[in-house]
């Protein structure tokens, strides 16, 4: 029954990614198209540290911290930009980070990737998929819990007010830049631990796992579920992870299956934007808002 557990682990990892992106994109209104880069930074940080002999627990925390730091560095210039410009700038940073992962051969082995990453171990080794699933589920639940506490606190209400009307939030004396930065850093940090979990579960990483396509997949999950809805993100992840799975049982070359899967995500997003931009369980906010 390894297959079911594998799917559940993948769902847990994507839940962390989707919930962390939802904090940035759904609650704060910052369209971040570089989320896969934070995922990749977490994965590489954790993989390289454990291969250098650092225990998994410390590498796991390091992936959280390093991805958060990159969130801060990217946020410094990018958060001054508005909406679509922010999106393109984060996309640019995501691609720069991927170019570095691909070309800094002495550190990352470039396109060859890093094989033989040790399995996660934290007092006990999560060597079977059941053990790893328990670990992944715990981390996913903790992530949802923390983000949920954040967005339902006064802090979260400020984030939503920035999303709704940044100038009004500023007029109320809120340091908009600071709040945006905190949301971005926390979101990036959680994407980092998702990366660490991915690296130590698959035990192999290469730059092709952290591309724009991956970001679009995570964006699709968040948008499908509904921007600003944590339950929605979980539902969006489950649907989009399971939806292409039947393709696995069709006798087709894997390149074709990958292309069909990408196309499926693209069509879902395009149709969703026209029919129901607020997603499945999202609030009716993103619809028909005319901007000056």
């Amino acid at each position, binding site marked *: 029954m390894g297959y079911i557990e594998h799917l559940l682990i993948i769902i847990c990892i994507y839940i962390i990614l989707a919930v962390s992106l939802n904090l940035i994109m759904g609650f704060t209104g910052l369209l971040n198209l570089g989320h896969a880069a934070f995922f990749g930074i977490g994965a590489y940080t954790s993989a390289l540290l454990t291969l250098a002999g650092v225990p998994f627990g410390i590498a796991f925390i390091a992936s959280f911290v390093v991805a958060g730091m990159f969130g801060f560095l990217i946020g410094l*210039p990018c958060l001054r930009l508005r909406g679509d*410009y922010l999106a393109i700038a984060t996309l640019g940073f995501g691609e720069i980070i991927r170019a570095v992962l691909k070309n800094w051969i002495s550190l990352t082995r470039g396109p060859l990737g890093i094989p033989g990453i040790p399995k996660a171990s934290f007092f006990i080794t999560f060597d079977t998929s059941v053990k790893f699933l328990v670990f992944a589920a715990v981390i996913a639940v903790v992530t949802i819990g923390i983000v949920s506490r954040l967005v339902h606190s006064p802090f979260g209400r400020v984030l939503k007010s920035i999303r709704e009307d940044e100038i009004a939030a500023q007029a109320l004396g809120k340091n908009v830049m600071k709040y945006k930065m905190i949301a971005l850093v926390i979101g990036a940090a959680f994407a980092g631990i998702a990366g660490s979990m991915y690296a130590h579960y698959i035990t192999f990483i290469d730059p092709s796992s952290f591309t724009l396509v991956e970001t679009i997949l995570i*964006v699709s999950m968040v948008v499908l579920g509904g921007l600003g809805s944590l339950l929605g993100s979980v539902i969006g992840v489950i649907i989009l992870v399971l939806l292409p799975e039947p393709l696995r049982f069709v006798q087709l070359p894997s390149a074709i299956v990958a292309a069909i899967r990408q196309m499926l995500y693209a069509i879902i997003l395009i149709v969703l934007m026209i029919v129901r931009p607020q997603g499945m369980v999202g609030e009716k906010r993103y619809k028909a808002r005319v901007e000056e």
Partner: protein
Amino acid sequence: MGVTAQLIANGIIAGSIYALVALGYTMVYGVLKFINFAHGEVYMLGAYIAWVVSIGLGLNIIVGTIVAILGCAVIGFLMEKIAYKPLRYSSRLIPLITAIALSLFFQSLALLLFGAEVRTLRQSSVESGMQILGASVTPTQIMILGVSIVLMVGLHVFLKYTKMGKAMRAVADNMQVASVIGINIDRTISAVFIIGSMLAAVGGVLVGYEQNLNPTMGVSMSIKGFTAAVVGGIGNIYGAVIGGFAIGLIENIGIWFIPSGYKDAIAFFILVLMLVLRPQGFFGGKTEEATRG
């Protein structure tokens, strides 16, 4: 000095393609105020349509080019009508998400139809270059530059002197007022997409002929074309042309200093730098407020 001359020549030739693609970005942005990220994929599809017609069906490359231009015009038209038009009055991020999704859609479509192999539109063997001011330039490269310049001048004349061109400038300036004085907004927007897509198709064919084509060629071109548009001040046609040549030159001279694996990252770097330091571009008007939060 041969190397410097060569890098400058390569930069100008690459830049002319970037400028063609940048024009499509800047025209759509000028009218609809959103980034049509799928524009680079239209360029890619243009190259593939020409490939199917001229290599697949064995017809003349000129026929292939014409079919590619017409095909991309249809793709651009349908893209706007089906995916973007319903979103015209939604929050600005919605069409951007659609644009990214469309880009992924076209890319995977090309992957399904044509496979991931690298192909080329060229049938003859490698051309010998000729020496111009110390740089080696092939006849194809001269053709690229010539065609691009002719198209840019043509676009200038079109925008300046034809009725539709004037309507486009009016809609870009103020859509509501333009509609009040009787300009058909829907038709003008369609025309913007069609013309931008046709220019991108020509760019795709030229690159497919000089170098090669693959399904991911649109993504890096998207970034370069968009960066060129931002450098020139997005919405500004002439800025986009200058931006295109600037990106081509910076990129080609840049690989003299940094490893060539980072060539694509140069455009991103310029893009982020521009967005942060001078988001209205070098020739942009008063769009500063529109770009900063």
